[in-house]
């Protein structure tokens, strides 16, 4: 929590210090996330527009109803709920890693970062399974085997948007996992201990939460609504 008394008595814009009392890298990460938010926002809103302009659209509960190793059981929303919980939990472990960083606890940071990485890998595996399953049902960019909810032939819009947006999101998860691994190794080797702060963990933590946030809305607009 920012020290309120210090904040009230400080002339933030008098020079020689950050007017937002925040490290340069952290502020820039926030502004990068803003740009990424607009990118994903544009993707999702264009998906919404095209879907709004269509007379009918495939029913997500009829498309996304499978679960690994469950054969042909009809289980709408189950698999994607699992994916959502995995990502939320990995966000929580990330917050705990940052918390340990604030207390300078190297072992705690590494422990929670490893859990976060495992969560990210689990999510990616789930998404890969989902893509593979849909591919074997005949879906891909330009190919949509699922009929509209009103029974008419659907265009490839559904598949195009699904694979593009989840693809971009999955790529962000993947790059997040890679950076998480690098940063965890750095922490384990004592780089941050020597620096005296775990700000790098905080910054990558921001990125990871953003990835979770995007998933909340992808899950909402593709599977739920």
């Amino acid at each position, binding site marked *: 929590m920012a020290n309120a008394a210090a904040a009230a008595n400080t002339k*933030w814009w008098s020079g020689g210090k950050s007017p937002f009392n925040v*490290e*340069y890298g952290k502020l820039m990460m926030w502004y990068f996330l803003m740009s990424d938010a607009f990118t994903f926002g544009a993707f999702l809103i264009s998906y919404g*527009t095209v879907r709004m302009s269509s007379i009918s659209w495939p029913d997500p509960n009829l498309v996304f109803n499978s679960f690994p190793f469950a054969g042909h059981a009809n289980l709408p929303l189950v698999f994607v*709920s699992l994916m959502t919980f995995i990502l939320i939990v990995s966000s929580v472990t990330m917050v705990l890693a940052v*918390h340990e960083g604030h207390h300078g606890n190297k072992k705690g940071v590494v422990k929670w970062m490893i859990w976060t990485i495992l969560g990210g890998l689990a999510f990616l595996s789930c998404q890969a399974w989902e893509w593979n399953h849909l591919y074997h049902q005949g879906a891909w960019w330009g190919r949509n085997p699922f009929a509209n909810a009103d029974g008419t032939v659907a265009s490839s819009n559904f598949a195009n948007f699904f694979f593009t947006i989840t693809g971009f999101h999955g790529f962000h998860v993947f790059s997040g996992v890679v950076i998480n691994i690098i940063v965890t190794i750095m922490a384990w080797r004592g780089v941050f201990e020597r620096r005296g702060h775990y700000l790098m963990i905080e910054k990558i933590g921001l990125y990871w939460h953003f990835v979770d946030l995007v998933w909340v809305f992808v899950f909402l607009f593709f*599977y*739920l609504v």
Partner: protein
Amino acid sequence: MEHQTFGGEVTIPHAAPGDDSKKRIWKTTIILSIITIVELGVGYLLYFTDFSHLVDLMFKGAVIILSFAKAFYIVSIFMHLGDEIRNMIMTIVVPLLLFVWFIIAFLWDGDSWKNLRNQYAPKDPVKAEQVTQPAHEEGHKGGLK
């Protein structure tokens, strides 16, 4: 007041979070989980029950609002934006208000496009062979239409 220098600039360190911050983390986790479960519950309700179009839309609107609540908790508490200096929070939140216009304008346009298409260029609908078999009984009209 002690100053720290990272990369040349000076920042006044935030007071180290007391151990109530761990409680905050767990409390927020539980809130997020409950909201998600409620959303899923509504999702299943819409799947199994036949509501009028208006009631359907109201449930979906509620789910969307719940998701924005989740976003608020994640950004404010997990990403610690709520703990930052107010002006910095504003540099993040104010531009994002553009989304309000963005969403309304584009969805409105999409709807208008559909109406114009139906009015001026109606096409004979092409029936698809049943590719996906709904597991629930015939005549079920829940979900999208």
